[in-house]
């Protein structure tokens, strides 16, 4: 198989990082602990509780967040034909944030449930995604589109600030905690529905590989090659909204992963074939998130770093590098 060396390398890095993740933090988990807590669970053993209640959901969420945001970024970059597109910079995350903010700050009990949270985030990201799609037809330049995305984010940010200003202390605390971004707030019983939703989105994208490969030629060419581009764009927005929305709902806004990882993937595999890019983004996105979370765990005894801070710290300089390298117009 082509690229097999790269796949093996990525897989080994991935497995090493999973191992390292369990070895990081104040309390480490050994393989024996993992085995025992799954097959011989004993609720009197703190390591068992620790693993199942904290470490397992946390690592799974790291993998889901990294993979989902990266694949969402890949979809955005193909659809807008723009290497600097991503769910965060185009305001898709902020759409999710807005509806989650309305949910948490209004205090409706419907929004406090897992399903309600997913639903709110999904609708929010889908609305902003559709708005961007509508505007993209009118904006010719790559940078113009990003500027509009950033402005939409700022605008929504200000609405959220209004909402915050009018809320009581407890609701505000809940929302602030959420908005800092974290992989730790997810509980084990929430993981299954999240995995289900994200996994169905990945399957949906797998069936879009052919149209995505054609879409890189631009809308007119794709159209003349038999692709219903209007419908395809809607499907892409919907799938992006699902991926970015779910992650945002549970981990808060996480910046730059969706922008940076698909660029790394393309550089590494030197291809525009989405069959390869999809799987490569899944694994490279997971690796990126694992690295970030391992750093957070390693520094835990010094300070608590929100995940969003770390991804921006690594991601933002990388984006500047991409601008210089590719000469984006």
């Amino acid at each position: 198989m082509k690229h097999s060396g790269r796949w093996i390398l990525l897989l080994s890095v991935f497995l090493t990082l999973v191992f390292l993740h369990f070895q990081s933090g104040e309390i480490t988990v050994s393989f024996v602990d993992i085995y025992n807590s799954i097959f011989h669970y004993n609720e009197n053993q703190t390591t068992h509780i620790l693993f199942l209640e904290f470490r397992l959901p946390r690592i799974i969420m790291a993998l889901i967040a990294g993979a989902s945001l990266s694949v969402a970024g890949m979809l955005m970059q193909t659809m807008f034909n723009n290497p600097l597109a991503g769910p965060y910079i185009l305001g898709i995350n902020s759409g999710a944030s807005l509806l989650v903010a309305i949910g948490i700050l209004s205090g409706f009990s419907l929004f406090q449930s897992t399903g309600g949270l997913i639903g709110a985030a999904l609708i929010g990201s889908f609305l902003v995604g559709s708005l961007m799609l509508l505007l993209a037809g009118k904006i010719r330049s790559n940078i113009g589109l990003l500027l509009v995305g950033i402005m939409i984010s700022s605008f929504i940010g200000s609405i959220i600030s209004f909402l915050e200003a009018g809320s009581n202390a407890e609701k505000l605390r809940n929302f602030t905690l959420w908005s800092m971004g974290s992989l730790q707030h997810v509980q084990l019983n929430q993981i299954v529905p999240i995995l289900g939703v994200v996994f169905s989105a990945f399957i949906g994208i797998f069936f879009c590989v052919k149209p995505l490969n054609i879409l890189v030629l631009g809308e007119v060419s794709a159209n003349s090659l038999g692709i219903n581009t209007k419908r395809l764009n809607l499907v892409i927005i919907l799938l992006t909204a699902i991926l970015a929305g779910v992650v945002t709902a549970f981990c808060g806004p996480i910046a730059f992963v969706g922008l940076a990882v698909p660029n790394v993937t393309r550089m590494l595999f030197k291809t525009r074939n989405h069959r390869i890019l999809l799987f490569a983004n899944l694994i490279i996105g997971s690796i990126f998130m694992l690295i970030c979370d391992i750093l957070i765990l390693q520094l835990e005894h010094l300070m608590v770093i929100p995940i969003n801070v770390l991804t921006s710290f690594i991601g933002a300089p990388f984006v500047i590098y991409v601008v210089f390298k590719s000469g984006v117009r």
Partner: protein
Amino acid sequence: MITVSNLKIGHYETIAQCGSLQLDKGVLYALVGNNGSGKSTFFKTICGIIPAISGELILFGKPLSSLSHLERSKTIAFVESKFSGVELLSVAEYIGLGRAPYTGISGRLSQYDFIKIKETISFFGIQDLKNRFTDSLSDGERQLCAIARAVVQETPFIVLDEPTSSLDFRNKKLIMQKLKEIAEKENKCILLSTHDIELTFEFDCQLLGVFENEISMLKEMRYEDLKEKLLA
């Protein structure tokens, strides 16, 4: 056979119209007309990319509007005026995308697809470019690849928007010669737009023109008369 009757085209308001027109297989047609006369809009309309304002378009017995996206892609191949290449997309992959209307949901190419692609690549003499990335090619090379992609699509009707613009003289002639050859040998209807009117006479194209917002066949037109008409 493609027939056009009482067609009005434009994005919102009519910018040009075509009373009646008939295009046959085996002929190379060239549409001439000044910038902004509506050549590109006409092409996008007959390729079904933008809707006509009114009128009728019949492609090989079926109205264009009745064709699905897939059926359309098996009937018409369209080459845009500008293909600036795609980063990290190789020439072979690019031409392979021309087979998209025939591949399954996975997009995998069959044995026949590969044979067809290989044949077309050697017809255009671009074997050496096969593994190059499309954004690293020269304008002439890229244009050849774009036309190869359209030919691989195996449609009876090929439409090319200014395929010879931005090319040097040698490449212009090469492209015209290849198109003429395909039209006659493979019995295809090929329609292109161009400002290189000398070439349309040299390669004995059937001329169409857009003058005063009317698209029509230019029969028995002399080179000097056409030049005068375009300058008027």
